[in-house]
Every structure is written in structure tokens, then in C-alpha cells.
């Protein structure tokens, strides 16, 4: 799952534009006949969606206010460490045991959610803004604008995502959450911009858009009022899927020593530290990776379900 391009390619040929009238099942209650409304109805009934979104909500709360969870077992400060208990297993008050420095693993794992989820959300937010603007400009205006944006995107697209980020990040001496997020976003925007561009091109040539042009609508107004809302669906799906991917990439980079740095608390760092001693203390590896997997899984399942719901052809 560390191969981000696979997520993209599967999403790319996906749904685009407004549903053709004949593809939509007859909306049951008359009140909700919009695409999002339909999707919401569809999703609410899926138990998997409820579970995944609950998990995501819990993780988000954990990222915002880790102290709410960390203190459950009475040792909520991740920086209270007792070297004499180095790599001890689970004990009362310390359900996940101790790491090599003698710090409580549970508190550290809970506090680690913030770094990973922040990077995930930041990167996707940044790429979303970039690709929305650039993609719709390129798609809607075409010609020179399209050429510039597309070629520029091609340049970045040429670098393998992980390798590119690795090389650029090495150049930074101090790497905060923001630095990591910016670098990841730098290599992340081209794929989304492409999707956005093709989806805008599709909508641009729809009859109702042409009609608006005929009625004298301004270009930017057209873009905002008619094109964007109908072209955004695929990108929204991609964004949800992307959060999970980015979290994995952040952990990978941190594990390799070029992502976040101590004293930041992050799952990648915990895994990296655990790697020297996992034979003697497997719990150091298990708990952070459990949380990491759960988070990534929640985001990806969520994204997957949303895509299904938004794509009428899959119904």
C-alpha cells in the first residue's frame, strides 16, 4: 500500500461528471434527489461505513486531544520515562509495556496519532487546493494554461513519489510536520491535478454549460457555478483515499530516518526505534504498527465506500 500510484490509477478512469439521468435509480423520497443526498442515504445503511467513520472520528479526536485517551491507565505523559523498566512488557497501568527508554508505550502511541494524522490531513488539504485550482484552470481554459500546468505536472510526475520525497527531505536539517507535509504535497499534486483536469474537460463540454455560455455567462462564474460542483466528485473520493496513503508514506520516510525527528512523537519514529530491539521486545513493534494499520485502513475503507456511493454506475 505504499505504492501510491495504484490508488490513483484505479480512481482515474472512475466516475466523472453528473450522473446520466437513466443511470439513477428512482429517488425514493422526493426531497433528496441530489447526488450527495443519494450517496448519504446509501452510505448510512452500510455498517462498514459506520464503523470506519466512527474509527476515523475517534482517531481525529485522539490527534486533537491525546490527553483525553492517554491518561486512561494512569500514566498519560509520554515523556515520563523510567530507564530501569526498559523494554518491559505490559504491566498494570502500562497496558502496552515500556519502550527502550522506559517510557509508557500506550501514552506514546496515543500521542503519536497527532503527527501521522496531521501530516495526512495537511498533505491532502494542500494537494486538494492546488489541484482544484490548477486542474480546473487547465481543464477549463485549455491551450497555453493547460500546456503550462500539464507540462509542469509532468515534470513532478516524473519522480517516483517516495524516492523524490526521500531526496528532497534529506536536504532539510530540521524536519517539522510542516516541512514533511510541504515536501509530500509537492510530489502529490500532479496526479490529482490530472484527474481534476480531465473531469473538468468532460463537464466543460456538457450541453448545459454550453447553454450558459450562450446566455452570456462570464467564464469564471461558469467555472464556479456550473463546472466545479459537477467535476469535484472524483477528486473528493481521491482525497479520502489519499489520507491513508500519505500516512503510510510519512511513516515510511520517518522509519528511514528522513521524516519527522525526535523529540517529535510519531508512529514512524516508534517503529524505527523498535527495529533495533524487536527480537527482544516485539511489543515495541506491534502496538504502533497496529495503530498505524488501523488508521490507514479506516481512511481507505472510508474512501472506498464514498467512491462506491458517489459512482452511480456501481450501484
Amino acid at each position: 500500500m505504499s505504492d501510491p500510484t495504484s490508488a490513483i490509477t484505479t480512481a482515474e478512469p472512475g466516475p466523472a461528471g453528473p450522473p446520466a439521468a437513466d443511470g439513477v435509480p428512482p429517488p425514493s423520497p422526493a426531497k433528496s434527489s441530489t447526488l450527495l443526498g443519494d450517496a448519504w442515504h446509501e452510505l448510512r445503511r452500510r455498517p462498514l461505513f459506520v464503523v470506519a467513520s466512527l474509527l476515523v472520528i475517534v482517531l481525529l479526536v485522539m490527534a486533537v486531544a491525546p490527553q483525553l485517551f492517554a491518561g486512561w491507565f494512569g500514566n498519560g505523559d509520554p515523556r515520563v520515562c523510567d530507564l530501569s523498566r526498559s523494554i518491559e512488557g505490559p504491566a498494570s497501568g502500562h497496558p502496552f509495556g515500556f519502550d527502550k527508554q522506559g517510557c509508557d508505550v500506550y501514552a506514546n502511541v496515543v500521542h503519536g496519532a497527532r503527527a501521522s494524522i496531521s501530516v495526512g490531513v495537511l498533505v491532502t488539504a494542500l494537494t486538494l487546493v492546488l489541484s482544484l485550482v490548477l486542474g480546473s484552470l487547465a481543464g477549463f481554459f485549455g491551450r497555453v494554461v493547460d500546456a503550462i500546468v500539464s507540462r509542469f505536472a509532468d515534470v513532478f510526475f516524473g519522480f517516483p513519489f517516495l524516492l523524490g520525497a526521500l531526496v528532497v527531505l534529506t536536504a532539510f536539517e530540521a524536519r517539522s510536520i510542516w516541512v514533511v507535509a510541504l515536501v509530500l504535497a509537492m510530489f502529490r499534486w500532479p496526479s490529482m491535478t490530472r484527474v481534476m483536469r480531465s473531469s473538468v474537460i468532460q463537464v466543460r463540454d456538457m450541453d448545459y454549460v454550453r447553454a450558459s455560455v450562450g446566455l452570456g455567462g462570464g467564464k469564471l462564474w461558469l467555472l464556479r457555478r456550473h463546472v466545479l460542483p459537477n467535476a469535484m466528485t472524483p477528486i473528493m473520493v481521491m482525497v479520502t483515499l489519499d489520507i491513508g496513503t500519505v500516512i503510510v508514506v510519512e511513516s515510511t520516510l520517518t522509519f528511514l530516518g528522513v521524516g519527522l525527528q525526535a523529540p517529535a512523537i510519531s508512529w514512524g519514529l516508534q517503529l524505527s526505534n523498535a527495529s533495533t530491539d524487536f527480537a527482544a521486545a516485539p511489543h515495541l513493534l506491534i502496538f504502533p504498527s497496529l495503530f498505524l494499520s488501523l488508521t490507514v485502513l479506516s481512511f481507505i475503507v472510508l474512501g472506498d465506500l464514498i467512491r462506491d456511493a458517489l459512482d452511480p454506475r456501481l450501484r
Partner: protein
Amino acid sequence: MRMWQRLTALAVGAALLTVTACGGGSDDDGDTSAGSGDGAGAGESTGGTFSVGIDEPDFLIPGRAQGAFDEMHALFSGLVKFGDQSEPQLLHAESIESDDNVVWTIAVKPDWTFHDGTPVTAQSYADAWNATAYGPNAWANNAQLSNVVGWDELNPAEGTPATDALSGVEVVDENTLRVTLKAADSQFPYKLGQPGWYPLPEVAFEDFDAFNEAPVGNGPFQIDGSWEHDVALSVTRYEDYQGPRPNADGITFRIYSDTTTAYTDAIGGAVDIVSVPQEKYKQVTTDFPDSYVAFNAIRLDWLGFPLWDPRFQDPRVRQAVSMSIDRDAVNEAIFGGLYTPATSYHGPSAPGGGTEGMCGEFCEFDPDRAKELLAEAGGWEGPMEIWFPGGVGYDQTFEALANQIRQNLGIEEVTTKSQPGFVQFLDALRNQQATGPFRGGWGSLYPSMQSLLTSVFSTNGDGREGGGSYANPEVDALITQADAAPSLEEATDLYKAAEQRIIEDFPIVPLFYAKYVYAHSSNVSNVIIGFDQVELNEVVVN
């Protein structure tokens, strides 16, 4: 500071105690051709080649190199060597004599040749020493010759020197040298084991940079091709070598940018001998149950301070840091108990006896007293950063130290700051850029208290940046007196007095008496670690 790098290699040991082969029996049975030897008597070699994991050397010219000990000992031979012995063993020297410890006469064995066939003569030594001592060359081991008459003229405070030769070095005849020292030094024969005292062939002086890529040495092995930067360095046995004959036909030094990678490679058998990074000390007994060697080096690990920074000038601040560190806990948790918590400023096993306990209460763990001391000194504001070199397995050690200081001293934020590598780290110290306590360590190149005291704490020391560039004329005077003392007992007493005087100033926080820890694959046996690191000649390829 070359030692610094070797620190990573961790192994130099205590003088008297010889190899502690904590690991297994396989190391002990191979004494066949050990040490003392004149090559001929050592019997036939066992052949084969093996590999050693190293970090990228800065230079291979002995006078210029800060690390690269193993590579240098393969390519070059000096006048004396130590191995795991505490007395200098004559290698190329026939005799080293003096009546007054001031004028030394050194006779070298005839018939030794460099790898290009030219003879190694007294002149080869004199030329090399002049080049090392010549200030404008700026070679790292320059200070090792600082006690020779004429060194001052070659290293003027400003401008270029008027001459390019040490006036205190005289070539008497082809095989005899006479060295005149500025002050009497009974430890002079020990000092000759340092790389600053190695010879160079004539070809070296044509172009040092070209020579550095493929050195022509006088050691047991000659270079095969040239130094492939960041990849490897291969050597094959030099058949005309007159010293003890190596067992192996050749060695490949594999260059790693991270010692942990080298360690993992050794587990997989991709490299035969590696120095074990600190973060693997707890694993090494499981990963290499029968094949790791921990040599009781005379080696001290400490925390140095930026003494130029006003926040660290009060000795009570430094003492408070010292008392806030639970050395036993760090030793157990990070090093698996391999080290010994330090209680003085010098390793435990120097000739003349150790100085354990000299540091007194300030090296004992006492958080309450530590907080009091810090408060008396005016407390601490803001974050404290601990500096260390990255890529050599120190991360967990310094994280543990930072946690100790933070929790036990009640400083809100104590963080670690790693530099990309040893070279950058040492530059930061030398340019006084470090803004907080930093990693310090010294593995004595020769088993005399003189090595650590002079190199780290004297005004002319070649490793003084590791002690925060500490300088005290009283200490200098005591060391000079000790050097001149006629007997070992008197010398030891004076060295101890110097150490006592340094401890009063408390420039560093001593942490551990460290060891050099190596691990080897089952491909090789008879791996002996000593003051010169790996005894390459002794290694037997199975």
C-alpha cells in the same frame, strides 16, 4: 580527534587487562602466530580473504587521517605497536633509547621496503614528520609532534614558517634518527605508535592528493587498485614485508555510511568484522553469541560543554548535569551492562593504577542535590540541546541521557540534535557552534595517562575540542612535569594530580569507561582487538 571516529569503533582498551573475549571460545584458540613475531617464525599463513566494515575515511595519509585506523594499520607500519599489550612492542624500530628523556635515539631495522620497492630509511620518517608538523599543511595529526624542538617554528601564530623541517629531528645515518624534545617525556616510546609518527615514501611528496587515493605504504598489506570512495578499499598481502606475516591473503574494507547497516550485513555474513554500534549492545550477545569481542580499552565517554557559552560557565551547572544522570540505569538499559559507569576523568586501567572514585559525589546519581546545585548556580532557562554525531548508532544513548537530564533536573525541554556525521560534528565543536552539551570520548591510542590528559585537556591537545576547548596553565604545567618524571610511579602521581586539578574545574561530565566492541562472522576466527583496533595480521580465515 581521530580517536573520535575510532570511538565509534569503540574498542580501545585498557592497558593491563587484555582482551576480554566475552564472546566465545573460538577466539581463544588461535594464538599460533600471535603478536611478538618476526615474520619468518610465524609459520605459513592460512590464506583466504576477509572483509571489514568501516566508515568512509577522511584521508589515508597517516599524518593527515583522523580515523581510518584499521585501514592505516594494514597499509602502514610504525615504529612500535601495542596490540592488546600495555607496553609498546617494537615493530619497525630496532631500539628506542634515551638517557635523559629529552634526546631520543631511534634505530630502525634495515631491509624494510615500501610497496614500490624503495627502502624505508630514517629519512622516510624524518620527511613524513616534517610534512605532518608543517603548519600550512594543516594535517590533523600535527599536534602529535608538538613536543619536538622546532615545531613552534613550523607553526607560527601567523604568517608562513621560515623553514620546512623540524630542527629537533636529525638523520644520523640511514637507519638512525635522533629526536630532541622541548621538554623531557618518559612516555615518548608510547607516543611513537600514533599515526603522526609513521613514515612516507618519496613518491608521496610529489603529490599528496594523488598519493592519498592509492597510498604506497610499508605495512603488511598493499593497496589493490585505488580507494573507491564510499564503496570499498581492497588490500593484498605484501610479500616482502619484514614484520610479522599476516595470515590472510587479502582484506576488503567495505565502506558503510551507517554502522547499523554494517552490523546487519555482518549478521547476514556479507561482511566479516564490524564494530558494534551502541544501540546493538543489547542484541550482540544473541546475534553473535560466540563471536563478539569487547576489549577493555582505556576509553572514557563523557558529555562535553560549550565552555564559551555563558550559560555553561558555572561549574555547578555542569556538576548538576553530572549528578542528574543515572549512569547505571543507562548502562543497563542501552549498553546491556557492557560499560562501566565512570567515576573519574580517566579510564580505570592505565599503567600505574586507575583513578576510579576521584570524581567523588559529583559522579554519583543524586537528583535532589543536582537540583540544588542548579538552583544555586541560578537555575536554567529555556531548552537544552544535546549534540551528537548521527549515523553511528548513538541516537538511543543520547535520547536516554536527554531524558535523564530533563526528568531529574526538572528542565522543561531537553532535546537531542544530531549532526550528519563525525566530520560535521567535529567541525561544529571546533568552530564553537555547539549550543549545548555534546558527546565526547577518547580512546587512548597508547596505554598511558598521558594520551587522554594531553590530547583533551592541554592547551596544545589534538582533541581538545572534545573537552569544550578547556585550557588551564596549571594543568599544562602538571602534565609537563609528569612527562619529565624519571619513574613511572612519580609520573603517575603527577598525572593524577593533573587529573585532580581538572576535576576541580569540572569541564566535562564523565559518563562511562567504555570498551571497543567488535563482532565477526563465522568466516573468520582469532579476531583480536587491541589499542590499534583489529589485529588484522592475526585474523584467520576459516
